[in-house]
């Protein structure tokens, strides 16, 4: 992909070795599967000045997941994991909605902005707590974040008094259910968050330092990276993303459900990150991959409905697709099934020979172009 003068087979090879190739391929296949069942699947119609269509809905309904998964990517890149995002979604929604419901004028812009600020602040505090436990106290991330995962739902229910709070606020409705420039407003929110994340990680040195901490924590300490600070920051960012998702979900339904808002979203988010090609061991990460991964999961959910998979076999079907995606990501599996052409040259792994090879048998080193901007 990087050199223009390559021959066709090697260009094909470079393409199949691009880290986004398999996630994108699966996404395209999943989308195509829908066509026989819904012939106008790809068509987008303009109604009342709004764009409607399956593609638009996939992005719309996938928005919260993309947000949560993007934050999760950075946490996973440091070698951690954040199980508390679902609870943070619930807490943020509960706080914002209960604040708005207490207002005399629920549609007053100042009140809505304050409610959102309050919710997001709570989310960031949750992230600070997670980061503190993980980075400062040295608690295993899975345990540290389990605390808020469990307790957070309780907190959300305390805030809502165990009720589902419904609100009627026009400005608040915009984030998750409104339209702007013919498109769902959520899409703009997601685009903004993804863009900010990419700029934050790739236009500063944050991405490099995160990958370094996740790739080798001790080496990072000895090179003078303040990994504690970076980890705390990343958990806070992850919680902030979850908080925005929480606002979106509660806005979309105009209700705060402490029990069910964002339920199991942490698992889908982790899955999206993995499908996107970021290793759970930490190190290299790809925001672009994560976005595609989240879209794959959302498309899968949509597909299950359109092709009419019986509800009781829903989860099994989903699991099957996920297994296929994960297998496709494994160079070992690809080499076994498709032959060496698709494998990541696992045979060359042991030899540290310089890359003097001819173009069509280039070793894996140069086969995976580096992602600068997702």
């Amino acid at each position, binding site marked *: 992909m990087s050199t223009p003068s390559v021959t066709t087979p090697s260009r094909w090879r470079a393409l199949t070795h691009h880290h986004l190739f398999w996630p994108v391929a699966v996404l395209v296949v999943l989308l195509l599967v829908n066509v026989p069942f819904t012939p106008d699947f790809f068509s987008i119609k303009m109604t009342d000045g709004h764009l409607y269509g399956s593609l638009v809905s996939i992005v719309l309904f996938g928005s919260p997941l993309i947000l949560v998964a993007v934050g999760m990517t950075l946490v996973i890149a440091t070698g951690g994991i954040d199980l508390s995002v679902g609870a943070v979604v619930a807490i943020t929604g509960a706080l914002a909605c209960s604040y708005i419901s207490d207002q005399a004028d629920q549609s007053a812009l100042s009140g809505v902005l304050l409610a959102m600020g309050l919710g997001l602040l709570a989310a960031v505090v949750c992230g600070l707590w997670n980061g503190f436990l993980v980075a400062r106290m040295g608690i295993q991330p899975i345990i540290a974040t389990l605390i808020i995962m469990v307790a957070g739902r309780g907190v959300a229910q305390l805030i809502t008094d165990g009720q589902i709070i419904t609100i009627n606020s026009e400005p608040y409705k915009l984030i998750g259910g409104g339209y702007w420039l013919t498109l769902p407003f959520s899409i703009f929110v997601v685009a903004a968050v993804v863009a900010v994340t990419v700029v934050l990680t790739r236009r*500063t040195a944050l991405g490099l330092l995160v990958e370094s901490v996740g790739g080798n924590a001790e*080496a990072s300490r000895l090179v003078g990276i303040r990994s504690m600070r970076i980890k705390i920051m990343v958990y806070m960012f992850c919680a902030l993303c979850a908080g925005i998702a929480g606002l979106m979900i509660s806005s979309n339904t105009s209700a705060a459900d402490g029990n069910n808002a964002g339920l199991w979203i942490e698992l889908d988010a982790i899955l999206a990150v993995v499908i996107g090609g970021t290793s759970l061991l930490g190190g290299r990460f790809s925001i672009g991959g994560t976005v595609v991964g989240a879209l794959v999961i959302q498309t899968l959910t949509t597909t299950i409905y359109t092709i009419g998979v019986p509800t009781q076999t829903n989860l099994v079907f989903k699991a099957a697709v996920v297994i296929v995606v994960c297998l496709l990501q494994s160079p070992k599996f690809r080499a076994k099934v498709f032959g060496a052409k698709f494998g990541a040259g696992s045979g060359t792994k042991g030899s540290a020979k310089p890359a003097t090879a001819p173009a069509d*048998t280039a*070793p894996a080193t140069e086969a995976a172009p580096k992602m600068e901007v997702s």
Partner: protein
Amino acid sequence: MAEPRPVLEMTGIVKEFPGVRALSDVDFRLFPGEIHALMGENGAGKSTLIKVLTGVYSLDGGTITLDGRSVRFGSPLQAQHAGISTVYQEVNLCPNLSVAENIFIGREPTRMGRIQWKRMRKEAAELVDRLGLDIDVTAPLSSYPLAVQQLVAIVRSVGTGDSDGEGSGTKVLVLDEPTSSLDRDEVQELFRLMRRLKDEGVAILFVSHFLDQIYEICDRMTVLRNGTLVGEHMVGDLDQVGLIQLMIGKALDQLEELHDHQLHSDVGETLVKAEGLGRTGGIAPFDLEIKKGEVLGLAGLLGSGRTELARLLFGADQPDSGKATIGGKQVSLSAPNDAIGAGVAFCSENRKTEGLVPDLTVRENIILALQAARGWTRPIPVSQRDELVAKYIKALDIRPANPEARVGQLSGGNQQKVLLARWLITQPKLLILDEPTRGIDVGAKAEIQKLVVSLSEDGMSVLYIAAELEEVLRLSHTIGVLRDRRLVAQITNGPEITTSRIMETIASGEHQ
């Protein structure tokens, strides 16, 4: 020694990787009861030959004959069952299990599915005893130093087939750089074990970068260069200079140059001053001064506190007594950041675990220290970054000269150079090098030593730690001698100082 029939014969071995011919037409033979050195620079094909022999790689051509029968191994396990055992540089055992469990792991004596612990311990103790080692087999492996763990790994590999008749006993033992992290006494212990096995008729294939060790223990050697066979010689017939010439294929002017090198006398005022700096369980409180442009070498056995001293000066471990000033200013040394801020750089002896981030590229690894010092909000501008990286790749001759290459795929010598580059671009005042030449080939070794000389000539202070005394002696203005985690002497280098003089100091613990 020239017995009629070799136990192992490899003929016309060919191994190809995409685009690279790693071995072409290599012959190799091994006689029972001999210790045979496999020599060559990094990348000469030693590891590939071993991996072909032990079934890690498949053959692309040639034949392997073991005990007169033609064999072909699909996996290391098959090779092991056929009697070829391997012990690698890194100990692949479970530190949390006992020695006996480690020796028998995967082939525990069982009765009706239950492990017979008593029998296992007894057999392990017998095996250890037979091989002349004094190890408590019930203690966890982690309670022993690395050297003993290595011995246990060897015991484990030769013990194959003793307990249940499976396999046919070890005929060939492959030792791939077992000595790279051992001190002299430990090497002797290893050699005792090797001689004992040799007397039992085991053929040992030995790989080491230490030429002295080869000449001490080996009977015969095979030399490889660029994947081809250069020759097979009896050790007595080839001297060290001749061997090195065979290995690198040209006269050894690089090293000669260093031999004649005079230490520059241009040493400035005090840069680092440590007073009573120490850490319980690490190193006893010591006083130390390092002057500008001075190379201070640390000599002492492995575990004598060399690394601990260096880590204290860098703040990698926190001192619990004393104080240190760098450039006249007191530094707290409570974290590496404090030392880095004062201009100290530290290349750890553990390149993989404490140095490199293997997933990242050469470029990213090189800029890491500088970037960490600038903080995440101030990335190094792309043009400046690429320029710096290109400059150091060229200056240190890092190969492949591709900044996009994953650092984990580079050879040991090149990885070491990447680490050096990482710190050199921060322009440190004091460069701490802990075993920078361990496990790397002769050529890269000479390059790194030359670099140290030129850096100190340019006014950089260097704290140099090496297991080889010749190396320390050749480079250092002052030699700090450590023994039992105590800095026992500081010797000013001069013509009358010899390695035996330093060894005496290490042995006696005092300097006259």
